[in-house]
């Protein structure tokens, strides 16, 4: 738990120090991660993990959408009108961001995030236990960490 909180605090900092920090869309992602940090203090476990899934999902969806959308605009390549986590991932892996792509484990992480999220979002009264939610959140942090290495 302590490690996860440290990871979250640090990835926020790394985002602020990245080349993407000056982009308006990324400031929204940073704010979303602050909401995620605050969600940790929710006392009821089921409500806490619901909020954590909600904020982490919005943050990572928005980050990858911004990165893919920015590259699409820069290169003039075709792409979707509306970005989802899956379409952002596919676009990035197909076209790259100035030649960079997610490595194999991180690409698998994004697929796992999508799968886990779909499970939690579409089944009533199903809440992941703390070890599961930390693994889910850790995956999102790893993806974001790698995404910040892409050059705008």
């Amino acid at each position, binding site marked *: 738990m302590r*490690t*996860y909180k*440290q*990871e979250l*605090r*640090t*990835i926020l*900092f*790394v985002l*602020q*120090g*990245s*080349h993407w*920090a*000056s982009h308006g869309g990324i400031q929204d992602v940073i704010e979303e991660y602050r909401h995620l940090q605050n969600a940790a203090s929710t006392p009821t476990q089921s409500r806490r993990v619901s909020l954590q899934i909600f904020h982490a999902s919005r943050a990572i969806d928005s980050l990858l959408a911004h990165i893919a959308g920015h590259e699409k605009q820069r290169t003039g390549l075709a792409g979707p009108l509306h970005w989802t986590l899956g379409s952002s991932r596919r676009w990035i892996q197909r076209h790259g961001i100035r030649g960079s*792509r997610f*490595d*194999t*484990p991180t690409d698998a992480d994004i697929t796992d995030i999508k799968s886990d999220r779909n499970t939690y979002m579409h089944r009533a009264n199903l809440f992941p236990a703390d*070890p599961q939610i*930390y*693994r889910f959140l*850790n995956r999102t*942090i*790893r993806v974001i*960490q*790698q995404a*910040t*290495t892409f050059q705008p």
Partner: protein
Amino acid sequence: MAGKRTREQNILSYVTRTLEPNSFQRNPYLPNLINQPDLLVVPSPGRLIALYIYDFSDGITWRLALGAVEDVFELKTAIGTDVRAVALMVTAVDQEATSTTRREDMLRLIANTFDFAEQIRADELSDHPIGPWISVRPRTNLIDLWNAEAQYQAEALHRNYRESELQSLIDVDRRPSARAKQSIREDFHEHIRVLNRPVERDVLVPNAKAGLAQLSRNYSFEFDLRVETHPPMLVDFLKSDRLGMRRKLRYYLAKARLIRYWIDRDHVLQRAPDFVPLLVVDGNFAGPDHDPFRYLRMLVSVGWRLARPDEYERIARLIGNANL
């Protein structure tokens, strides 16, 4: 250890005293780094500095120096080549008086890999003016190395990383056996004899240390075995358990990276043919509960093939594939 911890805290207090309160973070935690920086600083948006404190007041060894080099590799490949890597190295007064070429080379290796490095004497912390680390820029002479390594890592993971094959190595209940490393090595030698590949013991392998740091002489890495496949397979045997293995891990990560390069006057060249390093692990390499494959992922990303000593078929397959 209490003395070192206090010294580290004093250094951090000293370096942060002139920084804006929201511009730095003590004790950060980045998921893909084995050894965390002691301080992260964002002096302005888009600029990130990672500061490491290395306390060598009890002495410095190659394992410690290579651990520091590994820190820079991880930082540059996991966070980006633009992150500024800063090292503050605490040394003792009596070390300076009895300094050897070897010791100087170790310190030079660290100094020439980080973007900014400075030695601080353990007895002069309170009034030692640390150089302009806050305005440091990334070294341009090593950008090719970081980019080459990042690309290698992505390709190595794509080619060789299969969690299904590594599952047994994250079993925390699989403790190192009571067998001596020599006995495991002899067993291994016997089992690969049938593959009819010449095997050499205790081999010395050239590497990029001297070129990276412009050292006065070449320093080799020793591997337990070399199997004559094409490219050659270099084998090391390791007892590992979850506790206390991170220092070993940093050494093995740096080792696999540095044998792949030749650096001559800032030109980064990849060795041809490359070596295939194999790490035979007696025990486990389990990562934290929320990311159990972390350390195995890192080992595979730098080129290590991994196997348990009793995985004879897998080892034979790895040796056979190395010959393709």
